[in-house]
């Protein structure tokens, strides 16, 4: 099946001379959730802005379902809904009016039934006659999503959908994104939270300093680069570890109080239970244990090392 978004050789140099994107190519598959992962300033938002028409590309080409975003922008943009990163809303308009406005702006006839359905899906129906300035940040974020969905797009861009959002709302947001995907909408989101990409995405593109350094299935990326460490604090410092534990590739801290075990998180058994049993059997009682996931930075380091 042809990709729904095809980016080829895209570069963007801002007027200041800053090169935000450098020869980026990417294909997003129909109906998937695709996460663009990268640190702040990596070029995630610039890439979205170019595809959606907010920024112009210096070089390269983007096709949205076969429509060129420059020469055939009407067809391309009609398919896209964009939720920007910042909470940019009007102040004095009502929720219902602003969502209806978005539908019209995107060239669709008035349809109160669709607007109602979108507002209900986002738990905004009770707030339909409230003015935007009276809403909380979380509600405004929902309004932006409602505006993006008002014209029933087939592709939804979510730029940092959960930046600055509390835990509960983040869960709601993830639920919502999955629901949209199930209804057939292709979703492209940017995030700098590894967890978010892990929870939602089927495929992940890792972008850094304007370059797409890796595009792969989430499971493959996690398998290749995601590691979990289990740190076991011992009751008494150990000078060295007995031979019976050699198979676990443990690392003993310099002061002898902690043992670090690195495990594969994707396998059926992490081996933690066996390790704790073996420690017990070797007469090394443990006091406590904690886990540590690879941070995004560590994954980046892993990917970059892997590249070179």
């Amino acid at each position, binding site marked *: 099946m042809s990709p729904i978004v095809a980016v080829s050789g895209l570069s963007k140099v*801002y007027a200041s001379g800053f090169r935000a994107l450098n020869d980026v190519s990417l294909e997003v598959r129909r109906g998937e959730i695709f996460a663009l992962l990268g640190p702040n300033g990596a070029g995630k938002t*610039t890439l979205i*802005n170019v595809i*959606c*028409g*907010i*920024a*112009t590309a210096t070089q390269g080409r983007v096709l949205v379902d076969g429509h060129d975003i420059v020469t055939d*922008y*009407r*067809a*391309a*943009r*009609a398919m*896209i809904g*964009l939720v*920007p990163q*910042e909470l*940019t*809303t*009007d*102040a*004095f*308009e009502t929720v219902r*009016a602003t969502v*209806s*406005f*978005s*539908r*019209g*702006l*995107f*060239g*669709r*006839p*008035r349809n109160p039934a669709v607007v109602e359905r979108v507002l209900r899906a986002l738990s905004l129906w009770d707030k339909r006659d409230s003015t935007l300035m009276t809403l909380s940040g979380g509600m405004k974020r929902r309004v932006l999503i409602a*505006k993006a969905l008002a014209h029933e797009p087939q592709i939804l861009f979510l730029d940092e959908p959960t930046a600055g959002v509390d835990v509960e709302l983040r869960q709601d947001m993830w639920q919502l994104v999955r629901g949209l995907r199930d209804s057939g909408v292709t979703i492209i989101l940017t995030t700098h939270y590894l967890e978010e990409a892990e929870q939602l995405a089927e495929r992940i593109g890792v972008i850094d300093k304007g370059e797409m350094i890796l595009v792969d299935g989430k499971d493959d990326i996690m398998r290749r680069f995601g590691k979990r460490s289990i740190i076991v604090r011992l009751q008494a410092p150990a000078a060295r570890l007995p031979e019976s534990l050699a198979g676990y590739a443990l690392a003993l801290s310099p002061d002898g109080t902690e043992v670090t075990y690195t495990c594969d998180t994707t396998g059926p058994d992490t081996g933690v239970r066996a390790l704790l049993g073996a420690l017990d059997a070797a007469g090394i009682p443990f006091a406590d244990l904690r886990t540590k996931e690879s941070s995004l930075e560590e994954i980046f380091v892993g990917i970059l090392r892997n590249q070179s």
Partner: protein
Amino acid sequence: MNLYGVRAIYGYEMARTRRTLLQSIVSPVLSTSLYFVVFGSAIGSRMSSIDGVSYGAFIVPGLLMLSLLTQSIANASFGIYFPRFVGTIYEHLSAPISAFEIVAGYVGAAATKSIILGVIIIATAGLFVPLRIDHPGWMILFLLLTATTFSLFGFIIGIWADNFEKLQLIPLLIVTPLTFLGGTFYSIDMLPAPWNRIVLLNPVVYLISGFRWSFYGRADVSVGISLAMTVAFLVGCLVLVGWMFRTGYRLKK
């Protein structure tokens, strides 16, 4: 053609007018009416008529033009500046809507508002001064052309401005003085030489002269020149706004 998009922008702007009825309609009508009361009824009775037109009636086209210019510019410039200022412009830029359609929505709404305002002011003026309209067709033509042209000019200012001060700069420091000096309160042949020649460099002279001709059949310059100047300014604005959208000037990153 995205007519639903044009209608959405137009409707949004007209809703903004309704929300701010006091400042957008009532206030300009009131301030213009004050001129009619002071110059038309109070002082006007002591001033000699100009070419057989009483002074109060003489100043009506000029004052109307002043309101049309300032209000068209204010409406359209704020209309497009506000979404740029708060950031909601992202939606216009990402929508399947052409530059021409965006302009049609904003400028159409700003011009509509100015025309409504103009009609109310004419009606109000009729209460205070002996008003007559010799060439109603021309009057309507000038009204429509001026409202459209200066709404377009306001739109350009709204894109050019990158702060609120700049938004006010041209209306307050250029348009208002040019209108006052452009023959609102006098006929330019009342000016001494060389001012009666220098004043012809002021484009607003042509607007007011043509507009006054449509009311009383007298003009400082020929009505054809007035019309040509208005159309030339309209075309100039269209070219400029076309360039702004083509290059993404202050709109796109």
